[in-house]
């Protein structure tokens, strides 16, 4: 195929990502699992890239988990999304940026519904007015936070002090990129690269010097799946999905996994511990597991942020082997110190996973 043709086809897989003035909405679960990721995003945007990011303390959960488990009806979640758009409108912003892939999927679904069924939008406006006396404008731009980091990936590469290169042999680190299903599988036009060639994470990895692994189960779901983990007896389905991915990526010996979804990062990290405890298996040669990072943590690392300030001691799989490969200097003693320097305690070690 000629280059011109390639460019034309690839242009159909692009999305518009706002350049500045973001109305930022947090995830309801990320701060528990990966506590420094959202703060790192804000710090990078505000301090390193000098962008305007606004967040409103009155923002609530999008109720996506309740919606996907058939507890919250569509009319309710639609009204909650409408309230969030109203908060954005009241603050004078037009670019809506959710931190969570589930929320991003919810907003894309609602906006698409309103586009095709205007009576549903009218219903949401009516419910919101009745409940809160609020009105809203539909966002000009809806971008996930990983889209924003993707947009500035080259600027960050120029600002960064580290590359995704093994300092011992000079070779690019081998990276598994995992994209949340709700990012672009439901509405392909809403994601960079669509559902077929999602480039949002691979673009970052390549811009920062790493090598993306193309393994057979690359686009398989992590198994998060809402109903699969909410009911304990069903968690085997969730676990088995992740196991399938680990078995598929294992021969390529990845140095780490990066994910753009709260649930994916959580389960790809924690299920490695569970599988190790159940079956005595780890998926790397050292027996320590494959580190799993959020894209904000990855961006923070190459920008030289302290891994312990970013909360990376909360990971199940130790990140020190990865830090050593990149050549990031860190203080081992600081790992279990809180934000005010207080000792926060060392977790009980697992039986099989080495620390």
């Amino acid at each position: 195929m000629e280059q011109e043709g390639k460019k034309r086809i690839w242009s159909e897989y692009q999305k518009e990502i706002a350049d500045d003035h973001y109305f930022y909405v947090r995830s309801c679960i990320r701060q528990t699992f990966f506590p420094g990721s959202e703060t790192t995003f804000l710090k990078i945007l505000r301090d390193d890239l000098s962008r305007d990011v606004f967040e409103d303390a009155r923002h609530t959960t999008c109720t996506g988990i309740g919606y996907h488990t058939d507890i919250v009806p569509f009319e309710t979640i639609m009204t909650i999304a409408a309230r969030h758009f109203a908060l954005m409108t009241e603050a004078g912003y037009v670019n809506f940026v959710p931190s969570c892939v589930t929320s991003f999927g919810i907003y894309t679904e609602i906006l698409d519904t309103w586009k095709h069924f205007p009576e549903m939008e009218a219903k949401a406006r009516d419910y919101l007015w009745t409940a809160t006396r609020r009105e809203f404008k539909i966002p000009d731009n809806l971008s996930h936070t990983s889209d924003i980091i993707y947009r500035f990936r080259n600027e960050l590469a120029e600002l960064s002090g580290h590359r995704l290169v093994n300092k011992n042999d000079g070779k690019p680190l081998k990276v598994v990129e995992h994209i949340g299903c709700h990012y672009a599988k439901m509405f392909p036009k809403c994601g960079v690269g669509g559902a077929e060639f999602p480039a949002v994470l691979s673009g970052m990895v390549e811009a920062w010097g790493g090598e993306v692994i193309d393994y057979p189960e690359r686009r398989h779901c992590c198994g998060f799946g809402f109903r699969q983990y909410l009911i304990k007896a069903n968690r085997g389905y969730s676990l088995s999905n992740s196991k399938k991915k680990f078995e598929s990526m294992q021969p390529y010996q990845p140095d780490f996994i990066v994910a753009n979804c709260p649930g994916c990062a959580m389960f790809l990290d924690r299920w490695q511990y569970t599988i190790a405890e159940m079956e005595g298996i780890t998926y790397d040669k050292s027996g320590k597991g494959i580190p799993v990072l959020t894209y904000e943590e990855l961006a923070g690392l190459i920008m030289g942020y302290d891994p312990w300030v970013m909360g990376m001691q909360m990971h199940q799989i130790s990140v020190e082997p990865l830090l050593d490969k990149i050549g990031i200097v860190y203080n081992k003693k600081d790992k279990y110190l809180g934000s005010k320097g207080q000792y926060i305690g060392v977790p009980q070690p697992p039986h099989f996973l080495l620390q």
Partner: protein
Amino acid sequence: MSEWGFTVIQTNQSDMDQMDRGLIAKIGNAEPSIFWCIGCGSCSATCTAAQFNNFSPRRIIQAIRSGQVKDIMGEVNKCLLCGKCQLVCPRHVNTRNILLNVKQIMGQDAI
């Protein structure tokens, strides 16, 4: 496992990397009607041996056709070769001859 309340679920998918096409090639030559099977399970439903254990002619034919033949010999040996499966088959698959051939071919392979 009980301490977790859940466990790893074994997949029912056919692993194409593990496919063994050798047996189906031989059986297909000896008894081409194996390709007519639609997997309805009439054979398994009427099987006398299956009344007493988990033997299933349908599952064996499916395994041969998908190349998952690793544990098949132990299963085939449960067959009494009575031929009732053949009588009820809506597609006139000669199931008895298929199983007989599996015994003979796999027995020879073992030798």
